[in-house]
């Protein structure tokens, strides 16, 4: 299922396989970036979204302001409990980001939207898996929890 929502005039958000895909237009500016951020945070907050893919394939020029704005948006998404990845950087944009020496290690990148979505779903499954472990009601898990609890009591008594 793909649902779309237009943010501003030329940026679009789509939900594909539970991931929010933000397709950014060729040339960005502050107000548009703020609207995109707001749209993304609202969607991540209100819906069950595994994560967000920033599709950079149309972006030709990305200055340090824009880069930091997007990287900060990714951090905000993470605070809301989802993941963010960037895909499809153009060679020119990549080369400039290195030339201007912004810290690009703070974002995760993939080649295509498909790879980005795949990765987000895999990380979400991992997070869900951890949660399931904790909520596991099988006898084995009960026993394991009881064991841990006993251990805690032991140590409390020991103090």
């Amino acid at each position, binding site marked *: 299922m793909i649902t779309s929502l237009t943010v501003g005039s030329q940026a679009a958000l789509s939900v594909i396989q539970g991931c929010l895909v933000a397709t950014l237009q060729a*040339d960005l*500016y502050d107000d548009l970036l703020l609207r995109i951020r707001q749209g993304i945070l609202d969607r991540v907050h209100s819906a069950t979204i595994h994560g967000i893919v920033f599709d950079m394939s149309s972006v030709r020029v990305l200055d*340090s302001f824009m880069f930091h704005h997007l990287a900060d948006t990714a951090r905000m998404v993470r605070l809301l409990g989802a993941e963010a990845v960037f895909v499809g950087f153009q060679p020119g944009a990549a080369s400039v980001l290195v030339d*201007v*020496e*912004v810290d690009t290690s703070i974002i995760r990148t993939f080649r295509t939207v498909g790879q980005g979505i795949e990765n987000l779903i895999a990380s979400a499954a991992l997070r869900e898996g951890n949660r399931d472990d904790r909520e596991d009601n099988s006898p084995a898990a009960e026993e394991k929890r009881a064991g841990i609890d006993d251990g805690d009591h032991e140590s409390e008594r020991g103090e």
Partner: protein
Amino acid sequence: MATMNRSVENDEKLIVLSESWDKEHAIIETREFAARMGFSQADRTLIATAAAELSTNILRYAGQGELILRTITDADRIGIEVVAVDKGRGIMDIEKALQDHYSTKRGSLGLGLPSVRRIMDEFEIESSPASGTLIIARKWKGHRGER
């Protein structure tokens, strides 16, 4: 929209910056200007990025100003000159503004200036509280940095 463009001559272009979206306009105009001058694809992106940084500086810290694109020549080469001018409060500490942007990463003056200096071949800045800020950045065709 407040964007107004006036071609003074074929080899000069004035871009008025007063609204957020004027930055997008500045990027497009700069890339086209550099393309007409025959700069490589990679250089067009670099020069347009410098124009983007300068535009953001103006829009954020001075509120409004102008970007002027010019073709310049010397003995045996041609280049592009990007002039950013505003009547804002000026940059208090230019040295600090030009320091690596890690130290002035967010919310303070000078965020984009080290980037502009790295991208372009020549970089000049004059600033005072009375007259605002004037930045001149040049890139030569076939000079170092052309890839």
